[in-house]
């Protein structure tokens, strides 16, 4: 059996003890019986310190060096040392799937955690949004690490680190849907540009009798329209990028004046962002699914009577809500259970929705028994957004006491805003859209015809955090080298944030403002 011993190089043996190996075989059997479909799982037993270190590297012991991982490590170590939080396991989306377990877990914990791991692993393998991810990421990450380490040796730690800082500042500016949609045509294999120009421009010609032609379709009007359309077409082909580009990293890789090693590092950061994106896209589902799996396997199969208390203690900790914070484990688990119940009893579809009789609805049971089948289907085809959009019901929100909260300027704190279903759903979906981060795209790579870069924040009612936005803009400027601008809205006013490398500026932007009007006026 392959192990990561060579990668971790711990002074102790990280493979499972004979006792735990027997537990693993048992749990794996239950997982298959339950219908899970997973890559081979390799468990490694680690001390807290090593587990914290690996967690700081996002699960990859061979990741490239960067101080931010050291910072994450300090944070994890501190919360662990103070007894505030403990990592039970860490699962890596890879084939084979690596799962790190905390050595100090007791036997019941290890059982539960293994069942949980098989849930995650099944999700990684089957969920559609993970389909594009590299299943040999362990090797790929090691490769990235080696490349960056080589650059560090060649160009110096400070230089590479400064560049990495900038890349990591914009690492989330990717186009998460691009892996499923073809955003741009394949580059043509032959250049038909010449013929494209000759394509006639369609003009609006009304049907009429020939003797009325000069009056209904006057020649000069048609000419003018043709001219206008030609200009439009030309303008369009000159747009750069043709469509607003959400993959800012890709755009910078292609067009920013970077050295080859810098382009390579930017590419590495981008690749890892795409690899990690589905995990953020399916946080609620993935954790909900794994929790569903472990609770089912444990309570129906694996649990010994003597372990019930310990199991309950651990499980309730997993699904506890801490104050008003949303616990993805809990929401996911409860939604999966709700779906299973609804499809078992047939509480879906037109007939159920349109039923006005509350009493009848309450006792609705068609005895369909489709629940298990349905949740397996859901875990394959949905991500968090579609999951919430499709399966969150008003009954569910009432039963589980969901509410929305919003920032109150008056109170200087968050206050409960509403318990209305629509509001709750809206907020949830908003916070899941683009991972609850603002959407930024490149609209013009030759802004003002001066090679400047124009970005646009797709404003949706929430302002950016200005200090961070300006600092991030400065980092993009350092990559682009020419001035960089960002269209956004600040306190209700359209605003242009700019950074020219030395300083930043903030100008209000008229609604009608377009680059042409900014052209130097011919006075004098």
């Amino acid at each position, binding site marked *: 059996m392959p192990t990561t011993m060579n990668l971790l190089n711990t002074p102790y043996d990280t493979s499972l003890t004979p006792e735990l190996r027997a537990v693993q075989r048992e749990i794996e059997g239950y997982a298959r019986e339950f219908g899970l479909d997973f890559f081979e799982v390799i468990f490694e037993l680690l001390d807290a310190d*090593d587990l914290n270190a690996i967690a700081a590297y996002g699960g990859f012991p061979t990741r490239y060096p960067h101080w931010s991982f050291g910072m994450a490590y300090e944070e994890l170590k501190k919360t662990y040392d103070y007894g505030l939080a403990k990592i039970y396991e860490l699962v890596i989306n890879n084939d084979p799937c690596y799962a790190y377990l905390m050595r100090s877990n007791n036997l019941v914990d290890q059982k539960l955690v293994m069942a949980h791991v098989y849930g995650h692993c099944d999700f990684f393998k089957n969920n559609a949004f993970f389909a594009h991810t590299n299943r040999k990421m362990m090797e790929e990450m090691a490769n990235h690490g080696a490349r960056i380490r080589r650059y560090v040796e060649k160009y110096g730690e400070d230089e590479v680190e400064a560049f990495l800082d900038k890349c990591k500042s914009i690492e989330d500016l990717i186009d998460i849907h691009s892996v499923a949609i073809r955003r741009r045509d394949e580059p043509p294999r032959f250049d038909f540009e010449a013929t494209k120009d000759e394509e006639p421009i369609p003009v609006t010609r009304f049907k009429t009798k020939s003797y009325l032609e000069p009056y209904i379709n006057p020649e000069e009007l048609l000419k003018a329209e043709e001219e206008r359309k030609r200009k439009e077409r030309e303008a369009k082909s000159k747009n750069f990028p043709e469509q607003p580009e959400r993959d800012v990293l890709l755009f910078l890789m292609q067009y920013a004046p970077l050295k080859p090693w810098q382009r390579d590092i930017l590419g590495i950061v981008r690749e890892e962002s795409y690899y990690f994106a589905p995990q953020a896209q399916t946080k609620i589902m993935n954790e909900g699914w794994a929790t569903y799996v472990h609770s089912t396997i444990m309570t129906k199969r694996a649990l010994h009577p003597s372990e019930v208390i310990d199991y309950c203690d651990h499980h309730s900790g997993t699904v506890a809500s801490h104050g008003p914070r949303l616990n993805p484990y809990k929401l996911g688990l409860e939604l999966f259970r709700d779906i299973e119940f609804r499809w078992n009893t047939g509480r879906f579809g037109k007939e159920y929705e349109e039923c006005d009789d509350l009493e009848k609805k309450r006792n609705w049971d068609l005895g369909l028994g489709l629940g298990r089948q349905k949740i397996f289907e859901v875990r394959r085809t949905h991500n968090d957004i579609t999951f919430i959009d499709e399966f969150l019901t008003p009954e569910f929100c009432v039963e589980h006491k969901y509410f929305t909260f*919003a920032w109150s300027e008056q109170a200087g704190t968050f206050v409960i805003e509403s318990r209305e279903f629509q509001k709750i759903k809206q907020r*949830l979906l908003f916070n899941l859209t683009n991972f609850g981060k603002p959407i930024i795209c490149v609209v013009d790579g030759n802004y003002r015809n001066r090679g400047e870069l124009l970005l646009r924040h797709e404003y949706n009612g929430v302002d950016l955090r200005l200090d961070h936005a300006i600092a991030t803009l400065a980092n993009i400027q350092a990559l682009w080298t020419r001035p960089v601008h960002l269209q956004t809205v600040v306190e209700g006013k359209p605003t242009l944030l700019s950074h020219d490398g030395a300083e930043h500026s903030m100008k209000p932007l008229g609604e009608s403002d377009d680059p042409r009007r900014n052209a130097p006026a011919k006075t004098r």
Partner: protein
Amino acid sequence: MSFFHLREPLMVQRIQRDYERFRKIVRGKIKNNLSKYITRGELIGKRGNDLVSIPLPQIEIPQFRYGVKGRGGVGQGEGEVGQALGPPQGGANSQAGDQPGGHILEVELTLEELADILGEELALPRIQPKGRKNIYTTRERYSGIRQSGPESLRHFKRTFKRALKRQIISGTYDFDKPLIVPIREDKQYRSWKEIPLPQSVAVIIFMMDVSGSMTDEQKEIVRIEAFWIDTWIRAHYKGVQRIYIIHDAVAQEVDEHTFYHTRESGGTKISSAYELADQIIDQRFPPSDWNVYAFHFSDGDNWGDDIPHCLDVLRSRLLHKVNLFGYGQVESPYGSGEFLHHIEELTNEFDNLVVSHIPNRDAIIRSIKDFLGKGR
């Protein structure tokens, strides 16, 4: 670096490297902003026994994020509409915009590290503790093994290993019933060595004028200065004691809290504090055993006929007993500030007397340098 590092597991090395790098960046940021931290005095309340926590938001990697306004999320539980959710929950891995809270990054520094930064930034010479005042203490280290000793020091692992070996060799070990009984010859005990450790001890005597002319702002300046002086001196000695003396027309020894929070309306007699300090040194901190530091802060207002007395106490007694005597004069709207000129006369005579004028907070850094720049 060292031989031992090579033997450390690769991953520990890696995370250690990134961690060191992070700490280096932290130290760099603090160093760059040291004057800001000093003038604002924001670190004082953040001090634990050996650690200071320092808020460092600027170390985060900036990214495009939503601001707090218009933000919100979904929660679960009881509560009326309009009810406040209470203090933000510090969630380390909170998705932005997902939940209330989020936290300001705070890093912890040991006082030693902070002192190092202060020393580097202000180019302070390290203090040379007076040699004859070093006390040698002995400390025990468990570094050996012996055959006899008290049961509480029995080395279990070694004892049982030996017992197991003996039993296997003698054939009394039963693999089906693995029972190991150590006998007297098996028993191993930890033994200790006494290591003499040089230990230099120091006492810092802070004196402050609390008469009516000292305002809160002046006291804050004193507080900030005292914090940094304390940090620096503590970095050089094993055990540092602090004595606080307040005075108006009479002096008394108080605790730290009282020191900063007392306000008297009486007149000022500086000599009273010097006499008390002298007494305390003689009674409790004989200079032959202690490195004595004395700092006096005042607005320079004193009863005219008390000045000769003050100078006499300093010249004939106090200055012979202390490593360093620092006089810091904070400028107050009421004080005349004349004491500075009188005490300055003594600086030619005594090398261990430092006089510093602190008109406002911006002058604190320079003043700290004045006091600690002597390397005494």
